């Protein structure tokens, strides 16, 4: 798996659990932000704590995101291997095809 979790923190000020996923081959990033702060009624503005935090499983959510990201990456990787196509790395180097 090439995609991996590069950074994770909970920002209590904003109520956001921030996760940065990174893929070094392409230097691509995908951010996941889980809202764990309060909710506000869009009509009256009444603020209340989130009542579904127990239902959230951040590990599973991150795993789902990584799976989705990896699918596309793995497909391209398999394609390159199958057809012996060199791969351009984010560093600018072209990595020769594996045989």
């Amino acid at each position, binding site marked *: 798996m090439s995609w991996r979790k590069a950074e994770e923190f909970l920002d209590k000020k*904003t109520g*956001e659990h*921030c996760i*940065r996923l990174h893929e070094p081959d392409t230097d*691509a*990033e*995908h*951010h*996941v*932000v*889980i*809202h*764990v702060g309060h*909710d*506000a*009624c*869009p*009509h009256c503005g009444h603020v209340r704590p*989130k009542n*579904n935090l127990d*239902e*959230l499983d951040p590990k599973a*959510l991150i795993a789902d*995101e990584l799976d*989705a*990201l990896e699918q*596309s990456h793995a497909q391209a990787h398999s394609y390159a291997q199958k057809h012996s196509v060199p791969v351009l790395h984010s560093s600018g180097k072209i990595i020769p095809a594996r045989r």
Partner: protein
Amino acid sequence: MSSDVQALIESAVGGNKEDLRTLLTQFYDQNQMLNAATGNSWLQPTNNNKQKAQTKPPAQAGISVTGSNGSYQIQITNPAQAVSATIIHEISYSPIKSFGGNVTTLPQSSSTSYTVPSPGATVYFRFRSSFDGVTWNNYTLASTSTISSGLQSSASVEPNVPLNQTNYATVDSVASGSAANVRVYGSSLYKQYNAVRGQNSYIRPSATLINVPLGSNGYVAYDTNKNRFRFQQDLPSTFPDGWEPVGSVSVVEGGIPSLPTIDPIISGGGIVGYNVTNQGNGITGPLTIIITDPGGPGTGATAGQQTIVNGKLISVAPGNAGSLYDSHTVVTASGGVGTGSTGGGGSIGQNSGRLYVPRGVLPT
């Protein structure tokens, strides 16, 4: 040096006080003439041999300040001088006539023509002049009343180059349990997008914002200071320095979809307007509005443009008024309510998406 003067100097050096007096008197007279011509004055007695000569300030110059198209044009007319010398000017402006605060002072310069860009400003101008930058004449107001620069015409602004700001992100929402996920992506899901800022472009990450409550209207921004996405409830909150507005998304509140109710406003037998008495809920597209006059002769009326915001019908513009309508006229709305579950991204530059989830059928 003439031989007479040379002889006087040699005699004075030799101790002849009378010749020294004659020499100094001639020196004094020569300098008096020179000072009168140049406006200079004698050095004050001092032990500081670096002291600069005291210079009389120049006579008062003339000034003209006009404002237009967001800039001030300043023209100074130097006074006539017996001996040509460089005059330095110092111009300052303030919204306060006494210049008691908020004073902006332009760099000292011998130039007589200035352009000061300051769109929308209304200020007083003053200036003073000097030969040496040390001794100045008195401040003179350019005008006893304020001078306005006027607003800058859009025609004088370089078209779009430094101000251009857009991005190629799609922002949409999908249901997830009792909340929604807002997705930010480029050409397809999980693809990074390109943000254009002025003459530069940047690759920004894709993102998934999880557990966004249903019923919220949100604006997604990218905080370039901390390299993270932020979800805000209102557009102005996405404007701090270093934040890039990415797109808006509306997560329409759950609830049983309902059609709006509309009453016609009839005048002289024609329908001149529509009164939305119930805005309905969960409207996802244009409604079909039918006007009937049961048992009556009314005919020919059509409804105009509909305004739908956040799943609710806000207003219906009148179309053709028709004729012969009476108090029995009925306006019926149908269609326009779907059971969609996935928000759609807006077109480039108008990113927005929406999610409609009927109560009781939330995806899990």
